[in-house]
């Protein structure tokens, strides 16, 4: 910030000799490239709205409030996919948040410096493994292991809703487990950053009053970092909602509202990934692009909230992905 304003100041001083053509061309040129991002976002929104218009016009609001997927008779409503997206993402967060937050506290407050660097690196590796590889692992390793686990869960927790039905292995539970592994690094990395951003004086004040380490973390540290941590969790939600390949491979692809954690389902992303290549008929394609549009709106909304919360803690300009 200071660098930029200084250079602008010095440019203005050079202005005695008249505006410099090279400088102005430089500013305009880089401005155009920067604007390309904005143009892309607008074009993206326009293209999706335009291409999904046949479906949106025919079904109106019932496109998102009704659960129907019948390419043969041309009846489309993506409620089941919205529901599947929400269910898998929230279940994934329920699994990943406690572990991710615990790991962040360990990295930020407890681990010795050396260990912290090593563990941070390994958790970043977890984020670098591509979705397709998690999908491959999910199909051939996780799903076979999950089948007996689901049988056991059904036998012992079968009186609860969502724990009934045939244990296929593939389905909501498998997708949620894979998702929880995939979003965990985001929760840990961003939470660690906001926890570390809490001023040392806060901790010292608590220690000087005789607080234990945990009391210091639970009290001043986590309270100051709270909205940033919530931001990290919402950011992870955004990732989970948009995650495509791994989910497509293990969720079982069934266009119904899932009544059990064990049953196959669809998410918005997996619906598009699975059917778009084979879609026939204008309305089917428009409906799939409509599903992509719903997904886009959902993720933009989620991400905007997350960024606002994280910015409030770390004070803008910090790189958070």
């Amino acid at each position, binding site marked *: 910030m200071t660098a930029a304003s200084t250079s602008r100041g010095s440019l203005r001083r050079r202005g005695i000799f008249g505006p410099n053509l090279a400088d102005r061309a430089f*500013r305009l040129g880089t401005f155009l490239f920067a604007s390309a991002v904005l143009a892309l976002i607008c074009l993206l929104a326009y293209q999706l709205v335009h291409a999904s218009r046949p479906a949106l016009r025919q079904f109106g609001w019932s496109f998102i409030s009704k659960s129907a997927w019948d390419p043969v008779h041309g009846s489309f409503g993506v409620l089941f996919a919205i529901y599947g997206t929400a269910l898998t993402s929230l279940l994934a967060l329920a699994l990943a948040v406690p572990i991710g937050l615990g790991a962040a506290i360990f990295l930020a407050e407890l681990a010795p410096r050396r260990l912290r660097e090593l563990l941070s690196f390994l958790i970043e590796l977890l984020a670098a493994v591509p979705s397709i590889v998690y999908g491959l692992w999910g199909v051939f390793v996780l799903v076979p292991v999950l089948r007996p686990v689901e049988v056991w869960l059904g036998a012992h927790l079968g009186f609860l809703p969502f724990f009934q039905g045939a244990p296929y292995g593939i389905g909501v539970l498998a997708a949620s487990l894979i998702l929880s592994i995939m979003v965990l690094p985001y929760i840990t990395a961003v939470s660690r950053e906001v926890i570390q951003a809490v001023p040392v004086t806060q901790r010292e004040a608590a220690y000087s009053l005789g607080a234990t380490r945990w009391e210091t973390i639970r009290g001043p540290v986590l309270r100051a970092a709270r909205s940033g941590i919530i931001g990290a969790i919402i950011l992870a939600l955004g990732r989970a909602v948009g995650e495509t390949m791994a989910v497509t491979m293990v969720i079982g692809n069934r266009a119904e509202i899932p009544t059990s954690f064990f049953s196959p389902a669809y998410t918005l992303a997996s619906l598009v990934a699975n059917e*778009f290549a084979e879609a026939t008929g204008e309305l089917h394609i428009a409906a799939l692009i409509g599903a992509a549009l719903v997904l886009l709106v959902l993720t933009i909304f989620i991400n905007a909230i997350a960024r606002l919360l994280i910015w409030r803690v770390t004070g803008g300009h910090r790189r958070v992905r």
Partner: protein
Amino acid sequence: MTAVRHHHSSVRRARRRLANTLMWVLATLSALAALVPLGFVLYYIAAQGLPALNLDFFTHVPRPVGEPGGGMANAIVGTIILIALASLVGLPIGLLGGIYLAEFGANRFAGIIRFAADVLSGVPSIVIGIFVYALVVVPMHRFSALAGGVALGIMMIPTVMRTSEELIRLVPASLREAALSLGATHPRTVFKVVLLAARAGVVTGVLLAIARIAGETAPLLFTAFGSNLWSARLDQPIASLPVQIFTYAIAPYDNWHAQAWAGALVLVAMILILSAAARYATRGRLRTVL
């Protein structure tokens, strides 16, 4: 009275100490639990991928169903071609956009651009795929390497832009002032002095962006599509490692599954090397490296 109070406070102290130890243990266990999946995934990729890996894998194209052997040579080359195309699209916008944000980024419009870049980085990859399908594939009437490159290039932009901005900002003001005071124009100062000082960080941003897109599958499904043949033509469908892994993984043939694991091993190795190189280039100067 005092004895009772004393007793109470010692119980309380013990309880507080216990809570402290308990949380210590739980946090440590969480950190370990976070690493378990990484261990499992890497172990299975190595254990399943290595036996299926041989010279043919790197030198042959896929064989038809039922014929044993064959490899993913075309997909490996295809992935490299797609990364090159993506860089052509993503690097100019990302780098020059990042320079704009760092040099002229104090106004409201720059804030909007930053927000747009954040929004773009949050757009699901499958949505980018559909967007480029409508933008490039439909007008061209065919799937093509070009479309795949555009899709991946768009995904590179936010990473490159934000890392270049951040790293250019870190260059000391005295450097640019020295250049300006010698009479260098602003662009000359930026390209010859500032970028040179920030080059390690900028390289890191680019490598990270490439590592991020190298394994992307969803944006390629409906753009580059896939192919079982050698192809370097930009207006034709092209194979890529991720899509090939996907195709083989969901097919019902055991030898294809083995090849999918081998493909995953090669892909992960590629990405880990890129990420390690990116880390090495800056060595801890960049805050969040995800």
